[in-house]
């Protein structure tokens, strides 16, 4: 049995290091692609050997690192992390293909950073020790920062610093929470440990309700800011919009906020001082994000910015489903993470392609692109339809599960989210109508459709969106076993 969990971090990291050393664009892209393919192979190997019906940790590895503080290098994969690892492993090679023909300076750094990012994100997903978790968590900042800062748009400097500082501060608050957890547990048991599962198990024995609430809130703050959710979202539109297409997609693949929510916060939630209040708070944040993101998106003039806000709106479902705290609503929330990663990748790739072709992203300056870019129109249509929750595509499965099964606990918030469905449809169709349909705007000159590699990568993602929309079980079943475990914890406490 391969030590898959470690290899999933190591392989992209090594390839990243080598890619940094390359000289030409061909070498860099080729090496980057090989590395990401190797990672995909490992992920598929892990998936094939993965047992979906259990919530137990699989591919578990552990090594002592700093014994005096109880820090271990321990990694493993379960149903919460497996789909997200797959998501990253699938989209990153396609992303490299998508940007294959783009000309840019220092391609070695570009592809190296993409691979570093892959390693860091997978590192977060497999980490079972808070120290390892936090190291990879912060490591994700670096590639994203440089992505925006080097290859971004006009306001790239501002956007990159804002993103970095904002989420870094949130992470530091989360770190405080982790330390609180660590010390309180140390004091109680006399044995220091940073193991995620051990600390969460110990959490329920803390005596002070206030301490529990403080720890819970400070940790979840880090996740909520990363997710992001209203009102901690204001780094998102700038960063997503200013990033180059590949950077935007990497942001989309950065599913660590939601992952932390399921891995760490939800198991802790039933043991907090006032779980009902926490659930209400999460439900409110979720439904407000959904409503708010959609309303702001409705008025955006910039296509990419509109997509960024729609992403905010969609992430609201993750929180709402988590707050629903029923097996299927939590699974729906996890599925939303997976589905959102695929769908938004298509949307950002489409917006990127439009910008490359026409030189603008302002919706009103476009028009009638369907005539000149028929291939793009078809894949973009699939992406838009998936994003507005059309059944048969993944978005619907996630939204339906979240809404239908959160309703029992949070009826009011679910009704708000339901109202938003019309607004979501409105801004998607509005953008589609203005940008793609109608009379071709001759001012744009003679433009070219997307190249065959872009067609391939976008169509591949679109097919996945369709496939998992029709047959979500392969992914959903893993999530269901794990959400059952989370929910049964809560149910045992009568929450």
């Amino acid at each position, binding site marked *: 049995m391969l030590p898959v969990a470690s290899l999933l971090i190591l392989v992209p990291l090594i390839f990243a290091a080598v890619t940094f050393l390359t000289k030409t664009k061909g070498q860099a892209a080729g090496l980057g692609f090989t590395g990401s393919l190797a990672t995909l192979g490992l992920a598929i190997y892990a998936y094939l050997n993965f047992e979906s019906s259990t919530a137990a940790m699989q591919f578990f590895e552990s090594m002592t690192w700093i014994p005096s503080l109880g820090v271990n290098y321990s990694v493993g994969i379960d149903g919460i992390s497996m789909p997200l690892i797959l998501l990253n492993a699938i989209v990153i090679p396609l992303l490299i293909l998508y940007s294959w023909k783009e000309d840019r300076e220092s391609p070695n750094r570009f592809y190296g950073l993409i691979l570093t990012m892959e390693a860091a994100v997978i590192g977060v997903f497999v980490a079972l020790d808070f120290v390892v978790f936090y190291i990879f968590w912060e490591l994700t900042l670096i590639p994203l920062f440089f992505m925006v800062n080097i290859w971004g748009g006009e306001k790239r400097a501002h956007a990159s610093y804002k993103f970095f500082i904002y989420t870094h501060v949130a992470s530091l608050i989360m770190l405080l929470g982790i330390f609180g957890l660590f010390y309180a547990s140390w004091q109680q048991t006399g044995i220091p440990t940073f193991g995620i599962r051990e600390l969460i198990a110990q959490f329920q024995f803390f005596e002070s309700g206030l301490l529990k609430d403080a720890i819970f809130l400070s940790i979840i703050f880090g996740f909520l800011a990363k997710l992001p959710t209203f009102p901690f979202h204001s780094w998102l539109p700038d960063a997503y919009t200013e990033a180059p297409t590949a950077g935007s997609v990497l942001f989309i693949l950065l599913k660590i906020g939601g992952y932390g929510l399921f891995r760490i916060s939800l198991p802790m939630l039933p043991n907090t001082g006032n779980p009902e209040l926490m659930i209400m708070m999460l439900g409110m944040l979720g439904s407000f994000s959904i409503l*708010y993101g959609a309303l702001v998106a409705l*008025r955006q003039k910039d296509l990419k910015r509109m997509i960024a806000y729609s992403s905010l709106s969609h992430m609201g479902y993750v929180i709402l489903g988590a707050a629903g705290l029923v097996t299927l609503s939590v699974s729906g929330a996890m599925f939303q993470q997976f589905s959102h990663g695929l769908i938004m990748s298509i949307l950002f790739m489409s917006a990127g392609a439009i910008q490359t072709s026409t030189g603008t992203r302002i919706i009103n300056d476009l028009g009638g692109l369907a005539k000149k870019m028929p291939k793009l129109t078809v894949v973009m249509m699939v992406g838009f339809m998936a994003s507005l929750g*059309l059944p*048969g595509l993944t978005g*619907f499965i996630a939204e339906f599960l979240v809404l239908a099964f959160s*309703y029992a606990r949070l009826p009011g918030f679910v*009704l708000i989210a339901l109202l938003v469905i019309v607004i979501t449809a409105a801004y998607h169709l509005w953008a589609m109508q203005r940008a793609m349909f*109608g009379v071709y705007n001759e001012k744009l000159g003679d433009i070219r459709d997307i190249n065959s590699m872009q067609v391939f990568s976008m169509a591949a993602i679109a097919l996945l969106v369709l496939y998992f929309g029709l047959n979500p079980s392969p992914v959903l079943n893993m999530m269901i076993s794990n959400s059952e475990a989370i929910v049964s914890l809560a149910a045992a406490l009568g929450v």
Partner: protein
Amino acid sequence: MVKTALEEFAFLIPILPALAFVITFFFGKKMPAGGAIFPILAIAGSFVISFMITLRMLGNPEEVISQSHSWFAVLNFGVLIDPLAAVMLSMVSFVSLLIHIYAVSYMSHDPGKPRYFAETALFTAAMLSLVLSDNILQFFVSWELVGLCSYLLIGFWFEKPSAAAAAKKAFLTTRVGDVMFLTGIIILTSDLLKLAGGFQDGTYLLRFDEIFSYIPQLSALQANIFGFEISHLTIITLLFFGGAIGKSGQFPLHVWLPDAMEGPTTVSALIHAATMVTAGVYLVARTFPMFIAAPDSLMVVAYLGGFTALFAGTMGIVMNDLKRVLAYSTISQLGYMMLGLGLGSVIGLEAVGVSIFHLINHAFFKALLFLCAGSVIHAVGTQDMRELGGVGKVMPITAVTMTIAALSLAGFGIPGTLIGTSGFFSKDPIIEAAYIFGEHSNNWIPYLFSIAAAFLTSAYIFRLIFMTFTGKPRSNYHGHESPAIMTVPLAILALFALVFGGLTRTGFMAFLEETFTNSFVNLNIGNLAGIGRNELIGTTGNEPLLILWLPLIVALAGLAIAFLIYYLRVVKLGPLASMKNPIYRLLYKRYYQHEIYTEFLSLGIVYGVIAFLTQVIDVIIDSIVEAFGIITVGVSEELRKVQTGVVQNYATAVIAGVGLLIILVKLIMEVI
């Protein structure tokens, strides 16, 4: 073993057209006629299977085909073909087949043919899947796919801004209804879970039989909304009806349907006859056991249906666009179907029979009307009736078939005999049922609506016939009769529009009533109605003679008025039909719906006010975040001036610091 073989093929009914979609979409360009042959063959296959199942079921209605497979979690997909579904399947595939054949010629000049045929194939597939779904979720999935296809097809000529706008409007307006439908499903799911006490192995949560078995408990669940005690069942059914309002173009969500004319005429025919608008009526019919246990919902259905029938008729009478008149006529006829269903609180299950019977007949004559209109437009090149006239001379087949369709639509026939058009045999029972409803519940408004709408129907459709086919040409056009591939479907549909109703009227309704009693779930409708305190008396057939003849009389009156004004032209409308007449203007402007919906509600309130305010909030939140940065920079800008660069200052600071430390330590030591 023909019987088992048929069941095994049932799943192919929607799958065949779906496959045709894939093939035509990707390979249609290289095929002759844009690959139209695949959808035609596939839909023909679907029709054959559906028709054989229907034939078999006619003999023994209890032999329902029911297959379920797990989809995800506790939900499933499956096939359920009972009498109701069988009849719908046959109709949808049959009408769709004829329209597809007709379209081969109609669309022959369009470069986007492969896309057209692929999308219509998917459209048909989605509708077929909707009809035979055995659970409410698959129903909703197909329902949404139907919406998507209508969006794509209405916007088929996407380079035309009006087409792109109409497509968007259709999708968004029906989406409002869809959200209500989805909300209903979600409340239902939540309630069922509560009632069933969690998930149970071996049952699929949202299957229709599962839902129906919980009707009494659902009805017992009460919710308090603004001080009113309303049962959950009423809420759910009303929300379902909200979905039906959107899809079936009922007031107030009917605004998309007239605009949907921006697509090719064959698409309009598909939407209006076979594949889209009937979905709403079918939804109410499919979940009729729920409705019958919720009398308040049925009352809403009846009133809204009746009102829509009349309301759309008033607009149909002033439209000058050939297709728009037909569009309003569809809305009006759908209103009749809804009215028929809504009368279920008195006439019971017969409501389903009466309503679906009208749906089927309507499909025949409405498809015919649209295809005839398409034939005229195809030949003449305009659809403004003011520019037409005398088309009957150049297009005799079209003129005859369209007149047959008009007679059927207006419901001409002699009561008490077997003489009559299809429309007569299905529309009159609805009006009679409305009379019985009025007699029984002393609630005459639905009946008045239906009679008034019958008059308007006759008036506007013969206005269309006379303006288009008779008289002298009012503009220079060069018309010619359409080729056989177009006229043959017309003739077939005309035959059905003429005789289908008369031939099947006795068996048809009884057959449909078997859906819920003799087969499938074996519901005791009497008990369900008892939950809702309904009294089922059924139609008696003992109405006064005048009531039986009244629909024909008003239809004749409508015909006579149209004849006088538009054929003989002895009555001049003059100022009555000008913009100076406020009533005419109100009708012509379609009750200012565009202004109210688009400009006031969506643009003004949602887009202008709410979205604007949200954007302001967004700027405020962002400013708070940015303020942290600005404040930090500002403070450090000031603080760094402490670094004067003069060594003495530093030295002084160091020494002062040390002094302070000493004092502090001293103080602390003393305290301790």
